[in-house]
């Protein structure tokens, strides 16, 4: 009787959750109709970009447990390859996007192979080094990338004969990119692939004993993360219309990593929150523009002192599962 009641309550909660999600979606779709300020739309688009990037980095850091600080390298690689293909060969954006995703994925695998043995701090330093080498190459390979002057005037893409150039169009494009990435991550999280990755992250020896080959999953995490970052990078390039090596510094990697950790490892809602908070916070702190990066650093330290698992970290999720389970409401998900 009581369990039934609680079951009803739990179902209600899930229904409310669904309505909430639908409301957020409707709001996001209608935003450009309600808000005409280009600045606010720009912040929304930045949020979309960072949500997608954070999720792709969380796949590497949170799910597969490899602390990568070179994500900006993949992001920048995607942006550069797409831009160069479009500008030098006159290729259409969509085709260039595919090629750049494939190239960046291969690069991700190549970078991953020598670092498979490394963990924690070492991996962080090496990936930071990769990011720096990428930036140096883009700065010094002037015959192709125009070096520090960057590549201005990136052509805008067209879809079914419609040229995409207004901010509202980019808003919807960003929204679609973000939703696709979120959808992909939800599917991945609920699949055997995602669960194997989490098992490997918890204890790779135990995971290998039940037939999970860690190298395969580590490699795939890097490749998928790199491919998503390349997609987002290409979108970033056509949206901003100008890229230069200074758009892809190590600070970008640290920001993304802070978003992942602030939100919580291997957590989709966490990544979304982390990305939105850390994108909106610096804008909201514009009044204190001098202090905002200082506050940002201090926040990272304080966060780790008081909530080392992040906002939506594993501790919270375990508690939620426990709550639901003791109320007898929810069966464990089967995949």
């Amino acid at each position: 009787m009581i369990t039934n009641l609680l079951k009803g309550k739990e179902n209600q909660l899930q229904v409310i959750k669904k309505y909430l999600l639908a409301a957020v979606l409707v709001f996001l779709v209608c935003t450009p109709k309600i808000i005409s300020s280009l600045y606010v739309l720009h912040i929304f688009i930045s949020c979309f970009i960072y949500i997608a990037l954070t999720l792709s980095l969380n796949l590497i850091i949170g799910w597969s447990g490899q602390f990568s600080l070179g994500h900006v390298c993949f992001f920048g690689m995607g942006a550069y390859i797409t831009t160069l293909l479009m500008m030098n060969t006159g290729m259409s954006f969509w085709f260039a996007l595919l090629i750049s995703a494939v190239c960046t994925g291969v690069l991700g695998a190549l970078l991953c192979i020598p670092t498979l043995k490394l963990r924690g701090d070492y991996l962080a330093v090496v990936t930071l080094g990769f990011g720096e080498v990428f930036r140096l190459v883009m700065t010094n390979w002037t015959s192709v990338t125009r070096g520090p002057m960057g590549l201005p005037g990136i052509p805008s893409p067209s879809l079914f004969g419609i040229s995409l150039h207004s901010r509202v169009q980019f808003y919807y494009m960003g929204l679609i990119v973000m939703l696709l990435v979120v959808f992909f991550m939800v599917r991945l999280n609920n699949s055997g692939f995602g669960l194997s990755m989490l098992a490997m992250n918890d204890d790779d020896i135990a995971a290998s004993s039940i037939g999970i080959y860690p190298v395969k999953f580590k490699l795939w995490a890097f490749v998928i993360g790199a491919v998503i970052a390349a997609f987002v990078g290409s979108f970033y390039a056509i949206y901003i219309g100008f890229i230069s090596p200074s758009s892809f510094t190590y600070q970008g990697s640290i920001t993304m990593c802070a978003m992942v950790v602030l939100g919580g490892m291997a957590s989709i809602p966490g990544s979304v929150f982390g990305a939105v908070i850390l994108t909106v916070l610096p804008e909201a702190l514009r009044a204190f523009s001098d202090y905002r990066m200082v506050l940002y650093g201090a926040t990272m330290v304080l966060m780790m002192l008081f909530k080392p698992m992040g906002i939506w970290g594993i501790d919270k999720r375990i508690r939620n599962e426990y709550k639901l389970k003791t109320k007898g409401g929810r069966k464990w998900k089967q995949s």
Partner: protein
Amino acid sequence: MFFQQVINGLTVGSIYALVALGYSMVYGVLQIVNWAHADVMMVGTFIGMTLISMLHVPVVAMIILAAGATALIGMGVERVAYRPIKVNRRMAVLVSALGMSVFLQNLAQLVWGSGSRPLAIIARKTFAAGSVSFTNLQIIITLVTLFMLFVLYVLVYKTKIGVAMRACSTSIENAKLMGINTNLIISATFALGSFIAGIGGVLIGAYYNSVYPTMGYLLGMKAFSAAILGGIGSIPGSVIGGYLIGLIESLGAGYISSNYRDAYSFLVMIIILALRPSGIMGAKRIDKV
């Protein structure tokens, strides 16, 4: 040309060695990478710059005061950002250290501005011997480095606190059982590492005659490469690694391309980590990296 590059490489290398020691010592004791180390050094260098340009403190006193301030900041960073977090939460330690690094960098930008400031500690004189020329500053850098290494050697191998430090780096749990106040030793390690790095910072600031808030990043990465090359956790290893990285960088810039000067140390680090993660002098530990 070759000898000129070697001299320049040894000069920069000695500074990398000084900074690398801090990474290596902290890693030896706590098995964590102190990501804020280079930024602590940068703040110390700025303090030295302020002392000499605004208060006109004599050079020797300035170096000692700046290094002392760096030591205090290093201890403070350990107290605030590392000690409250359990060491087994490595991810949290890493992020907190990165946060500390962002914090210090931007604090320095706030206080001293984001531009580059000059730091002159001595009137430059250039000596020439055949085709090779060197400055009096290079001689001073080399001598100070050797002196600091000697002091460090005495401190670590001949004093009681040095014995305790080495005990902690073998096993912190056993050191605790032997009645060593490990928290004190950890603080002392941070202080010592930062002190030496502070001297390195002032010297490199004087060598390039510029101090700027982001100087810690590249210098820190190179010093960390040096610590890895030599074998992290090993004091003689870091010194050798520092000199080697200095030489590789200088010769690479001279003979291959100076545009990629900053990339050589990263490449060396990546190769070393892929082939021999324990470095030149490091003890082989199984499943460490």
